[in-house]
Structure formats: structure tokens, C-alpha cells
């Protein structure tokens, strides 16, 4: 596919090898279990891969300065989103919440006051993610924030493979020949935000900014992207980052 050839050469870690190596060396038992469950091999066809859509609501974009407010995840496969198995946690941020971000996330002060610290939630989260390939929209939130969480609460780094639906959109709309032509014509770039991307596939508009609903929206978007642009036998190695 044209857009693939145009995508920049990326040097990806050998994810299964990396996870296996970490499983041997890590000292936290929670992380050890997560790494030991590994992830599907790169040649796994996407329609056979166990996936988990993940979304974090945070107080900002910088993992070192901002906090996680809530975490939503939904296990799924290319055929089915297992909504009944969804998980959701509200966690107490270490810094007080501004009122803007409260209205934005629809989470109240009292909910946060009663919420546990990330340390309590992290083992359950890792268990729910274990063995499944994470799917997020914009990987530069979920990965750094969970890495920071693991460093501060478990004392060790956490890296893991993800399929980023935003970067799949970018491959088509930002990196393709057509997108470069548009840029050259000084046309505004096509929006690759979650709701705008969904609209391109005829997916309904959800009232966003709830971690679970965004996880669901991301899972649906991946199903639509694969159905539209890829063979169902496309390997996860072509898709992950």
C-alpha cells in the first residue's frame, strides 16, 4: 500500500523478546506477571489477536507534571467488543484537581476524594491488560503516563506495544502522497482526532471524555479502520508501534 511505503522507517523493539527479558529481570511480582503473559507475536493476524482498548483521562499532557484521573479499558477482538467485561477506575491524583478539568471529565470532587491511589489500582490494571495487545488513540498519553505510574508506584519502568488508531489515521491522512499534496496546496490538514476520525467511518458521535466511552470509541474505530483499509489477515507487526 502506498501509504505504507511512505511511512517513515521506524525501528521497533522486538516486543515479545523485550517482554520476555523484562519478565526474567523485573522484581515487582505484578510487573513480572504482566511481562510473563507477553503479547501476540508480530506475525499474528490482527483478526486473531486478543486486544484491549485503553483510555486514560489525565489532568494534563505531561506525565511528569500531571496525574491520571481515571482509567477505562474494554477487552475486544476484531470481531467483537466485550463491553460487559469493561473495567473502570477513578484514582486520586497527587495534586489537587482544577475545576476546569473536573467539568471536562465529569468526575466530581467527592468521587476523587473517595478514590484509591494508583498504587492500589495498578495490579488490577496490569492483570486486565496481560496477554492482550493494547489499542489507544494517541499513544503519547497512555504509554508515558503508565510508565510514570509504574516507576513511581512499583519502582520500575513499564513499556509495552500498542496499536495507535491515531497513527493509523495519520498514515492515511498525514503521511500519504495525497496529504503532502494537500499540504503543498496549503489546505488545512485532515483532523485525526478521535471523533473526527470516527465520523469518516460512519461511526456515531459519542459524548466523549469518559475513559470507558473513549476506550469503546477507540475499539470501534480500529474495527472500522481494519475493515476499510486492511486485510483481516494483516499482521499486528504491520500495525503496532
Amino acid at each position, binding site marked *: 500500500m502506498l501509504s505504507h511505503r511512505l511511512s517513515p522507517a521506524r525501528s521497533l523493539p522486538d516486543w515479545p523478546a523485550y517482554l520476555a527479558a523484562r519478565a526474567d529481570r523485573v522484581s515487582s511480582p505484578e510487573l513480572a506477571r504482566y511481562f510473563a503473559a507477553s503479547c501476540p507475536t508480530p506475525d499474528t493476524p490482527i483478526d486473531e489477536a486478543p486486544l484491549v482498548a485503553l483510555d486514560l483521562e489525565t489532568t494534563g499532557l505531561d506525565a511528569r507534571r500531571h496525574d491520571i484521573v481515571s482509567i*477505562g479499558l474494554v477487552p*475486544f477482538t476484531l*470481531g*467483537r*467488543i*466485550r*463491553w*460487559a467485561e*469493561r473495567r*473502570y477506575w477513578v484514582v486520586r491524583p497527587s495534586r489537587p484537581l482544577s475545576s476546569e478539568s473536573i467539568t471536562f471529565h*465529569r468526575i466530581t470532587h467527592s468521587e476523587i476524594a473517595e478514590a484509591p491511589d494508583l498504587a492500589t489500582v495498578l495490579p488490577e490494571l496490569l492483570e486486565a491488560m496481560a496477554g492482550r495487545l493494547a489499542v489507544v488513540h494517541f499513544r503519547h498519553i497512555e504509554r508515558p503516563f503508565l510508565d510514570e505510574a509504574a516507576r513511581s508506584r512499583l519502582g520500575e519502568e513499564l513499556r509495552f506495544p500498542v496499536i495507535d488508531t491515531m497513527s493509523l489515521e495519520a498514515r492515511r491522512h498525514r503521511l500519504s502522497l495525497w496529504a503532502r499534496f494537500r499540504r503543498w496546496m496549503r489546505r488545512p490538514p485532515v483532523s485525526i482526532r478521535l471523533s473526527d476520525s470516527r465520523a469518516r*467511518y*460512519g*461511526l*456515531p458521535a*459519542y*459524548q466523549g471524555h*469518559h475513559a*470507558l*466511552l473513549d476506550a*469503546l470509541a477507540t*475499539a*470501534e474505530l480500529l*474495527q*472500522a479502520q481494519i*475493515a*476499510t483499509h486492511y486485510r483481516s489477515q494483516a499482521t499486528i507487526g504491520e500495525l503496532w508501534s
Partner: protein
Amino acid sequence: MEVELLEIRQHMSRFPPFESLSDDLLDALAGQVEVGYFKAGTDILVLDQELHELCYIRSGAVEVYRRNGDLYNRLGEGDIFGHFSLLRNHRVRFPARALEDTLIYFIPEPLFHKLCEADEHFADFVELGRPRMAAAVEQHKQANDMMITRVRKLLTRYPVMIEAATTVQQAARQIGEAQASAALVLDAPDNNPRYTFTDSQDRPWKVCGILTDSDFRTRVVAEGLSPDTPVGELLGERLITIQSDESVHEAMLCMLRNNIHHLPVLHRRRPVGIVHLSDIIRYETHSSLYLVSNIFHQSSAEGLAKLAPDVRAAFVRMVEDGANSQMVGSALSTIGRSFTRRLLELAEEELGPPPVPYCFMVNGSMARNEQSIVTDQDHALVLSDDFDAKRHDAYFLALAERVSDGLDACGYPYCKGEVMATNAKWRQPLSVWKRYFNDWIDNPTPERLLHSSIFFDLDSNYGEEAYVEQLQDLVAKKAPGSPLFLAAMARNALNRTPPLGFFRTFVMEKDGKQNNSINLKRRGTAPMVDLIRVHALACGSQAQNSFERLDAIGNTQLLAPGAGEKLRYALELIAMARIRHQVIDIQQDRMPDNNIEPENVEDSERHNLKDAFQVLSNAQKFLKYRYPMPARTGRSR
């Protein structure tokens, strides 16, 4: 409730059969769906695949097929499919394919069964066919049993209310400014709680009386009271009121009993309006009973023509009061027959008594007592066998012309097919009519019967009823033993077929084409009436009304058990949909017609109509099989 469920829950709660589910069930539903995306053109359900889920269309569109590949249905947002399989053997009987990019919510089987158990409406909905249609018709019937018009329906405004200390002059001005003819007088409440209420500002008041125009005349002017007299001093001793949920009839009796023209209406203790006797009279004049008596009081064709708007008003009123299609059809036929009869009486007054006896015969919907508000005139003259064309025909032609012209002026346009007594062919002595019927039955071809089938709905309207009865006897005796005739009639009954159903703002045809509107008579009631007529002829019934014909058919083994009931419900649903849309036309100042536009069809009505069309379509298939065209008449196309 969990916020993340809101999105799914709100969507589902907008569509039947989920709309009536309790909040608990809706929450359970929204939390347990699974989700799948299907690109346009991909299969969602494949024939014979195992199925343990109900499918709900969250967005997009889906086509459902029959086993043989025929299109069965086209579904859109909020529609469900797969329930037939869940209720039977868990094998997909109707494969489904995404027509557009589609997002499906899958509802697991245990939850589906729980919904069926917990919610009767849901269960009725997913059990296709009779139960759902029956439920719709029964529901309408129940509403009809409670059909008392409440007096609050006559109220158009809140009452004018003035304080007792107000002077007569001020009060007169206030009433005049409000263009009212009466006002309620209020005072501070006393110990008697009977007429006390609190207004919107939470102030307590007591209604102490009513002040009407005539009080100003009889109490103020006639007795020479000063304009400064407080209105409180004018009030009578006893205040008569009625509760807003009493019937109009009760309000009328109350006024007559107490000899008053104004009646304050209370909701509990709060005044909500005043009805005047003229409101009640205006209301009653829209009743069909009043209209019929008015028809017989007219002394000229012009006078009759002036009643045409009243027919529409009576029609709207009947439907609003919750009448079913049989009641509406028979009332409108009675009105039409009354016009005809009165026109004949007036014509005879002018032309003199008829030279030989005659019977004025009506045909088509009027004979069936199924007339609608959109109808033309179909009639004929059956004359005595003493009729001599040279001497008598001029009289009967003149008679026929007067009736036909008069009916046209009253809103019953001339018949395009010339089925009118003004046509010499249909103005014949009884013996000729017998010959016509014998010939139609003995030498039938679909082509010949196409234009004469209207005569197989026949009834006398005026004159020598026995003539038409003899013709009815003849048909009832002869038709059952004439397979060729029945086959020809059956063939013609298949000329018009129902559509498949609705999709968004379109009518769906069986070949997948989409139209903007549908003629519910041509595609619904007429083919239904046609096929019921064939069965009625086959069983030798004399009944003319389709529902009475179904009763007669039900006493035979002609149809499979339950099939007659299905036809009855389907006819009622289609007829009522047509009637309701004609009322909408009238209310929106359009000429009523037989078309309905899908955007005006509510969700529940869509589903009911779709079922009814299906019943009609199946009944047509059975008709073809039941009355086959014998091979030797190989002339047909």
C-alpha cells in the same frame, strides 16, 4: 447509573421495543451489549449459522434476505434483527448483510429471554405477526371503550378571575377586554374549603361565584345599581361547577338541569375554565348523528351541498374520539347513503312519482359500508321488469342525473369508470341485471371481470330492496360452484400488491426500489378487500362488509385456522393508518388523499404496517394457489 452507559442506553430507549422497558432493564441492557463494526457489503449473519444474540443497529443500514435470496427487509438505525432465530432453533433463517457501514450492538440470548419475560410489550414485539398486530388493534379498542369526551377538551382558555371588591364598572371593562362573556369572582378564603385553591403565587383564594354578561343586564342595569357597586354583591347564592374530567354529556345535563348557560370547570378545586352552552352545541353538531338528521331536513340539493364541510368535521371528530375503521366506514357510508336517499326524495318531489317501481343500488365501498372520506360515487338503477325504455327511461335518466349531480356537489365526485345510474347500461330492469350477473359468472375472463367486480359489492339504498336482494341471492347461489369465475376474480385480486415496508423516509418495494409515498388504498385496503371478496363468493356468503365476510369465511374450512383473524387485524391496521393520515391532511388544510408519506409514519405504526403488508402478501399467495386458473382457458397472459 453509570455515566458510560448513558450513551448506549439513551440511544436504545428511543426505539421500540426498548422504549417501554423499565430503567433497570435498560441499564442491564446497556451494560451487556457486545459491539461489532461491519463494512458496507459484508455479511453480518450467514444462512444457517448458529445464533445466540439479538442484533441492534446502532448506526448504518442492513438488508435482510429470505432463504431464496429475495429481499425481506431493509433496516436502519434502532431496528433489530435475529429474533426469529432466537425464538426458534438458533439457526439463522434470514441472512443479513450491511448495506452501509454499520455498527451493531449484540444483545446476549439470556438477556433477550429475560426481557421477553419481564416486559410484555417487548415479547409482543419480537413475536412476529398476529400477536403484535392483535396487540395494536386491541389497544386501540381499549382506548375506544373509554371513549368519553371530557369537558376539559372544550376549554380553550383560562377563566377571567376578578376579586369580589372590584367595582362593577371595572369588572365589566376587564371582561370586555378579555373578550369573554363571564368571569369568576374570587375572595379571601373562609372556613369552607370547598372552593378554596391557591394560585401560582401561592396565595389562597375562594371562588365565590360567577359573573356573566346577563348579570350586568338583569342585576346592574335593570335594577339601577351604581357602577361602583362591588361585584361581590351581585353574586347568586349557589355556585354550580363541574370537574374537568366529567363528560361533555354530563356538562350538558348539568346546564339543562340548572338552567344556566355558563359552567365553571374545576380541576380538583382550581378553576381551569368556563364552558358556555354554545361550546357544547358546536361540539355536538360535529357528531355524525346530528349530521344525518340535518341531511334529511334539507329541502334542496344546494342545501345538501352546503353540508359537505360538516362531513369532514364529523369524520375528524370520530377519529379523534377513537373510533375504529369499521365505525368510521359505516358512519361515512350511512352519511353517503343519506345524501343519496334525500336527493332521490327531492328528485321524486320534482319529477313526480316513478312510472314503475325501482331500486337504487349502491356498489363498491358504500355497499360494503366501508366508505372513506376520499370516495367517488358508484351506483346503478335496478328497475321493475315492467320497465319500457321508450316510455319510462326519460324519467329514470332525469332521476339518475339529479342524484349524480347532487352527489358530485356534496363531495362525491363522478365515477371515472362510469359506474353510475346515468349510464344506460347500468339503468336496466331486474331481468337484464340477472342476465349480466349470470353472464359474468358463466363466461368469466379476468379482463371482463376487471371492470365489473365492483358490482359484486352491491346493496339497495332506496326503493324496492327486494330487487337487489334477488341479485345478491343469485350471486351467493351461483358463485361457489363456478371455479372458473372464482379463478378469474382471484387473478384480478392479485393485480395490486403491497410493498415490503418502510426504510427511513422511503417506502420499500419487494425489488429493493424506494418510493417517497405509498397509496394505502391501492397497495393495502383495496387488494385486501378484493381477496376477502373472492373467499366470500366461494363460500356463498351474502355479506357485503369485509369484516362480516371474514366472519362468514371463518365458519367454513376455506382458510387455515387463525388466518382469518390475521386478515382482520391487518385490514383494520391498514384502514386505520389510511384514516389517520386523512385526518392529518384535513387538519393541515390539505386535500385528504390515500397517500401516506413515510416521514409521517411513527415507529410503531411502521412495524404494524409492515406486518400487515406481510399478511396481505401471504394471503395473496394462498389465493393464487387456492383458486387456480383451469388449464383450458390458456388465453390468459
